[in-house]
């Protein structure tokens, strides 16, 4: 597999619903060679639901500081666990 490009979004200080709006913009532009890495103060269930419904693979995990790490890829072969930085 070629080198994966990470698309970052730090949404921790964005007011609701800006994180969701920005994230959906990114989802629409995702390719097989890139993945989305989002930091959020909450676990964004609507985003994860929406991504899963569209066939993306998703992963979300909370770190010790209470920040949620959300990873989304269009390419379902990408092992998101390996890309998690928690």
């Amino acid at each position: 597999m070629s080198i994966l490009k990470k698309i970052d979004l730090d949404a921790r200080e964005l007011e609701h619903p800006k994180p969701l709006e920005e994230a959906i913009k990114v989802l629409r532009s995702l390719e097989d060679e890139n993945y989305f890495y989002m930091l959020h103060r909450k676990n964004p269930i609507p985003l994860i639901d929406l991504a899963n419904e569209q066939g993306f693979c998703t992963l979300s995990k909370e770190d010790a500081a209470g920040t949620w790490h959300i990873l989304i890829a269009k390419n379902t072969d990408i092992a998101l666990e390996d890309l998690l930085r928690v």
Partner: protein
Amino acid sequence: MFNQNGLSLDQAPPISVVFRFFFSGALFGIFSGMLIMIFGTSIFDAHTTQAVILTHTLTLGVMLSFMFAALFQMLPVIAGVTLTSPVQKANFLQYPFTLGIITLLFAFYTSFPWLYGAASLLLGGSIFYIIAIMLKNLFELGHHSASSKGMVIAILALSIVVILALYMTATFSGTINGVYFSQMKEGHYSFGLFGWISLLIISISFQVIEMFYVTPPYPKAVSSYLPPLLFGLLVGTFILSLFLPFTWFATDIVLALLLSMYALLTLIRLTQKKRPLSDATVWFWRSGLTFLIVSMLLMVITLFTQNSTLQTAGYLFFAFFALSIIFAMFYKIVPFLTWFHLNSQGYFTAPMMHEVIHPKTASKHLYIHLTTFVIFLLSMFIAPLIYLAGLLTMLSFGWMAYQVIHAWELYQHTQKRGEKFEMGNINS
């Protein structure tokens, strides 16, 4: 939509369920403006039939309609409660509820006993129907947040408001002799203003202030204990007032202190938000909380001095407190729901939130709202201005009704003509 658990696509209430209550609330608001123009300054005397009619048009027709919309929307969000068959439930609630309000207003106007009976059946039946469903779902929850607990208490307060109202309408209709009428009346508006309206706003704010505006959370002591404390005070005072007169005097002072402290704390939280710029919804919150503080101050002053002007001003400030918060929530909920539903249905061409309701549109409404308030205050001294206040009230709610229609049309237009994205064409 907003919380840790979020709003899953399966839980989201149909957009029509929320919009229909916003729309009927706005229509009752326009009707309120008409009533103000017809009744003139007689609405400033709380003992007149005109004031009673306007108060119930605002509290039942406007505020309760908007709050039902917010509850249908927020119960899945804040409490994780999913109401099954929401469209059917909204129908069972809205038609008798709307008819009940109109019947009650006619009952006040004509004093026909049978109209009070009909209004009691329609309003009592419809409100208790939805209260029972909401409480049953809330009581079945395994885990409660401060907000969901507060919502339970606010809904319980609403049920007490309705029970006391039924006692009063039964007295008006001659069904009972109404020995405790004055105590029930005092309890009715105390539970309505402090138990239902204030508690619901407070409970929802515990969740949305932090989420919407990225502020530090409320202190746990406040979010955990303020709603039960307020409710406990109301219940205790109401029971005592059946035997001891003047019990509400001390309680009103404590309630005023608690609500003012909550409003101050929320205003401070809003100064701690991460984003330096404030949109119209923040200013609606700020205005509303300031109105609440002034209203409480006036309430305490009028406990000691029988000044009818200050008393009327206190009611005005309180009404504008509730309406300001309702408007703040409206401008957050309507664009989000329209955008969210269309995105969850996979529409690539879904309008962005600012295209559903532009922030400048909300700002214009803020100016209309604040101008309406100032004109109302002035009309207490310059009577003819009441007609301008009535016109502005119609404009304010007409503005809202238009936003609901516009959002609904955008939603339907996208559903009919929008392009859907799937995995295969998401990049197209």
